[in-house]
């Protein structure tokens, strides 16, 4: 057999799967978002009409879409910096020369990452229960009155953010840890001889040296956090007062509850464009600051 033919046999299955079950649907989603595909079209394709950018224009006039966008931005803007700060803090603690039992601590801190999100969301619902929950009981000891975490529109999203941070900080922690270990020790030694405090060493050596890692972690985390779905689905169903409806939750409801697949595809594409624009802007900012 000719050798290049053999190569095609090796890559063929993967390319076919990716092409048929990913490439084609993405392309179809773009077309679908330009049609009024709904329950009637689902029953009979002849009911399908081309509507141009109708879905997009309609979406921009739908209050719930804007609400879901606002909620998702809230989740990303508060959640991502918090998650990265906790990850970095944990990595610095683990990397401290005095730290002992590192393997144990690292495993324990990483454990939440591998747990099943749905199961954890179920646990969270009980932990943050307004009357029997462990969290309110613990807060009671420091004199904080019980909070209706998942029933109060003001607190529902912060509760989801806490869950997301708990679940994913270990992932970035491991990446930061590798980044910290790659910083040459003589930089710190020189700083110590100059009498620089630990805080100064952090701001003037650690943080600048972590620049590229920070960039990667930031982009991955932002892209991931925009895809918020399972937490509100399991914990709140978008309530109270639609304060936890995320863009993907809105897409799911539009598409698979009301069968407005045309509109839902437009939602998916808008989300994709937002993620693309924001991560691209982050990379540009990083390049300007010389982080990448």
């Amino acid at each position, binding site marked *: 057999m000719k*050798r*290049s033919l*053999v*190569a095609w046999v*090796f*890559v063929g*299955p*993967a*390319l076919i*799967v*990716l092409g048929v*079950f990913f490439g*084609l*649907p993405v392309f*179809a*989603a773009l077309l*679908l978002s330009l049609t009024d595909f709904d329950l009637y079209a689902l029953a009979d394709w002849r009911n399908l009409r081309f509507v141009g950018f109708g879905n997009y224009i309609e979406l921009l006039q739908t209050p719930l879409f804007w609400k879901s966008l606002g909620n998702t931005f809230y989740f990303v803007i508060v959640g991502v910096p918090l998650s990265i700060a906790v990850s970095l803090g944990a990595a610095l*603690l683990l990397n*401290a020369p*005095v*730290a*002992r039992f590192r393997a144990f601590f690292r*495993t*324990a801190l*990483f*454990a*939440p990452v*591998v*747990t*099943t*999100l*749905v*199961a954890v969301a*179920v*646990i969270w619902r*009980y932990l943050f229960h307004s009357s*029997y*929950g*462990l969290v309110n*009981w613990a807060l009671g000891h420091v004199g904080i009155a019980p909070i209706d975490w998942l029933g109060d529109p003001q607190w529902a999203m912060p509760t989801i953010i806490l869950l997301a941070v*708990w679940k994913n900080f270990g992932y970035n922690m491991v*990446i930061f840890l*590798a980044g910290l270990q790659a910083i040459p020790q003589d930089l710190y030694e020189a700083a110590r001889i100059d009498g620089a405090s630990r805080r100064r060493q952090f701001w003037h050596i650690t943080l600048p040296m972590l620049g590229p890692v920070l960039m*990667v*972690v930031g982009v991955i985390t932002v*892209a991931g956090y*925009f*895809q918020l*779905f*399972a937490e509100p*689905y*399991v914990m709140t169903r978008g309530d109270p007062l639609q304060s936890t409806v995320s863009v*993907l939750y809105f897409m799911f409801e539009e598409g*698979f509850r009301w069968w407005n*697949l045309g509109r839902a595809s437009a939602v*998916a*594409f808008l*989300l*994709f464009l937002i993620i*693309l624009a924001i991560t691209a802007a982050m990379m540009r900012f990083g390049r300007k600051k010389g982080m990448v």
Partner: protein
Amino acid sequence: MSAAIRGGVGESRGHALLVHAGLIALTLLSLAPLLWMLSVSFMPAGGASRFPPPLLPSSITLDNYRALFDRIGMGGYFANSALVASAITLLSLLINTMAGYAFAKLRFAGRERIFKLLLAALVIPSQVAMLPLFLMLKQMGLVNSYAGVVVPGLASIFGIFLVRQYARSIPDELIEAARIDGAGEWRIFFRIVLPMLKPVLVTLAIFTFMGSWNDFMWPLIVLTDQTNYTLPVALASLSREHIQDVEMMMAGAVLTVLPVLLLFLMLQRYYIQGLLLGSVKG
């Protein structure tokens, strides 16, 4: 000078104390929800809904687990999850490894261009494809079947990338020598390449298995009949019906989380390596 050193020792003792206090606090926060889940799962029905909330069961019972298997059919969901995750892992491992090896070591027209295209496609969130994919699988009669869950997971760009990165370190001479000896391409792949790729195969297998075991949105969309549900989908639906049964739901959460948690504890070295390898290039 000696005063300075003594001062340094005192300061570093305080520093060590702070570091460990921080680590212990974070560890408690990380493990508390999981330990609480385990503890409540052994409490008798209604045992957790009290104030103050009990931390440990007053008497240990396996009733919640028994009820899950006897009345709720948890065994079936567990089998569905195991079947789907194993099928995706085994099949995608073969497909991704073949492709990753070809991108690293075999020559064919457009190799670099296709690979760049795949990397660029990584920025597209999988949810964009989900709506048309559902319609496609409906046409193919795969909605509400295991195949419908498995098929989109049969190849992954991340997996191909991971294998390619690793396979590039295989010396070309080794493959050439085997060719000169008259070994066919398949024989080379299975006898020489696969054994050398073993570490990255273990890594990829764990990643894939955990990813498909924990996956929620796609199985939720494609599985419409309750008997076909995977564990996360079943748990999400049960937790709505049985909102008052805290203890039983926690037993369900234990059954869902435990397999992947144990897998991670056994093979974490490979898992962390893969995580770092995968994030090098985003």
